[in-house]
């Protein structure tokens, strides 16, 4: 199935280096990488291998030194600061290791946040938020604050927030890294469901082999270079 469809992410000759004083540390060197629509890709590799950097570049929150990144036919490396922010709002869903919910907002309001950047009115926003909270099974917790929810529940709210704008791709950075085994399993099942039922494309960085098992494709990064498994 993956082979048949047009790639949603197309990365060519991507390089990125960090500067520490006078020292230049290469992180990614000449990466070429395609992700097909509806694929669940796991990026693995040791610390410092550049997997999070690659994820950040695909998500448009970091800038490349060289090369091109096309996501759904948009060349994001040439977008300016403000256009990139607008692009992220509509095209990328973020799932973080520590959920990154806003503590002073309720589950409902957290999920509603990305919709505040759309033209939807109040009633339409409510419908969307209720629908995705229902998908993640937290419709009855929408008035709870993050501190009143368990880690697994918080991550499910974060996933609802990531999918509420119906983005092209979901990027997940160690989504199970802070969870116990049972909650982690629930989150992975939910992500798997998003791919199978809703046709989402997921790019996930993980250390956890159990998490990587859920993915269709596992890519290993080592010293800034990709290898296929």
């Amino acid at each position, binding site marked *: 199935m993956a082979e048949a469809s047009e790639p949603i992410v197309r990365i060519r000759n991507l390089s990125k280096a960090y500067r520490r004083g006078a020292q230049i540390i290469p992180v990614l060197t000449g990466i070429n990488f395609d992700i097909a629509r509806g694929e669940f890709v796991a990026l693995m590799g040791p610390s410092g291998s550049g997997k999070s950097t690659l994820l950040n570049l695909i998500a448009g929150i970091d800038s490349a030194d060289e090369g091109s990144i096309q996501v759904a036919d948009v060349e994001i490396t040439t977008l300016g600061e403000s256009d990139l922010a607008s692009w992220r709002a509509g095209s990328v869903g973020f799932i973080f290791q520590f959920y990154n919910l806003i503590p002073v907002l309720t589950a409902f309001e957290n999920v509603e946040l990305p919709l*505040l950047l759309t033209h939807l009115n109040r009633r339409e926003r409510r419908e969307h938020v209720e629908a995705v909270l229902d998908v993640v099974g937290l419709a009855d917790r929408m008035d709870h604050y993050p501190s009143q929810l368990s880690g697994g529940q918080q991550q499910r709210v974060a996933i609802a927030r990531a999918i509420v704008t119906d983005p092209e791709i979901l990027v997940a950075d160690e989504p199970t890294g802070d969870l116990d085994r049972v909650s982690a399993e629930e989150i992975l099942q939910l992500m798997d469901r998003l791919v199978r039922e809703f046709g989402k494309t997921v790019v996930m960085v993980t250390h956890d082999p159990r998490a990587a098992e859920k993915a269709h494709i596992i890519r290993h990064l080592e010293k800034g270079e990709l290898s296929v498994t």
Partner: protein
Amino acid sequence: MGIPYSYSFRNLWTRRLTTVLTASGMGLVVFVFAATLMLTEGLQKTLVQTGSSDNVVLLRKSSNSEVQSAVERDQASLLESQPEIAVGADGEPLLAKELVVLINLKKRVGDKPSNVIIRGIDPASLKLRPAVRLKEGRMPRPGSAEVVAGESVARRFKGCGLGETLRFGMRDWRVVGVFDAGATGFSSEIWGDRDQMMQAFRRPVYSSIIFRLRDTTAFDAYKARIESDPRLTVEAKRETRYYLDQSEAMAKFLRILGLVLTVVFSIGAVIGATITMYAAVANRVTEIGTLRALGFQRKSILSAFIVEALLLGLCGGVLGLFAASFMQLITISTMNWASFSELAFSFTLNVSIVWKSLLFSAVMGLVGGVLPAFRASRMKIVEALRAT
């Protein structure tokens, strides 16, 4: 649409203690700011209420106050016969030729001497000042050594109470009445028969002439005619203008004092707000990174933190105004520098002071919040997210 205001508000609420402490510091400054404005307002209100806009005061040219002025008798008789002067129900013109002298009296508390205005009045004087009402006793009989004292003087100065005796102008004067003049400057005066007083003080001339205009719009024409008349050396002012001018020197002093205090204090309060907002930004680095990743623009982050700082400032403003509103219970008695006499007035709060104080507090919040808000908006997303 940007980040909702509730986000800024709830963050303040979440760190209530810090918010209240910072807001209290700002509140103190707003308190000083509002209190000096209230003092100035109270002073001006007292003096301006003393005057009435259809009354005209005639003084010798370039005298700032009745105490400095002198109107010759021949000029007075010319001025008495002008057509603009209103006539009372009894057919007499509503015009009073008055004598104003300062004397020194000792206060009941502390025995300290202070200047008090003695006003020699005509029968028309009372009709020209409807705010003045006899409260106790009776008015002095014409041609006698009797006086009535304003309520504030009667209460605060020795020998000025009802039935007591005062000595000035080498004579003894019996206080036969106490009058209430509301919140006007007359409350700080002693009134008696003008001719008796001119005798006692050996004054050959009047201090001022006060009269009611028949038609209040006729003032400008009247003033132009009188002041260009070569036989006269007087100038005409509306009574309200006259008392406003009297308050100007003191009001200006209070304003400058208030401004200096407020500026010095507000620097401290702004630094406090800056520290609080920097701490708020530092505690929420990941949150800021997350919001930016979700697609919120730099300017949304900037405005969210600026709104937070504005709200913090307004909290301070409300606290300061609340405290300042209690100052209305206090009455101040001090020297009016224009007439060199005692004047009693109170702190007065009005809508304009409320708005000015709130605006001032918002500006303090804004100034304190600008740098931290800029810092928040300029963070690199990846670095902010890594701060977890």
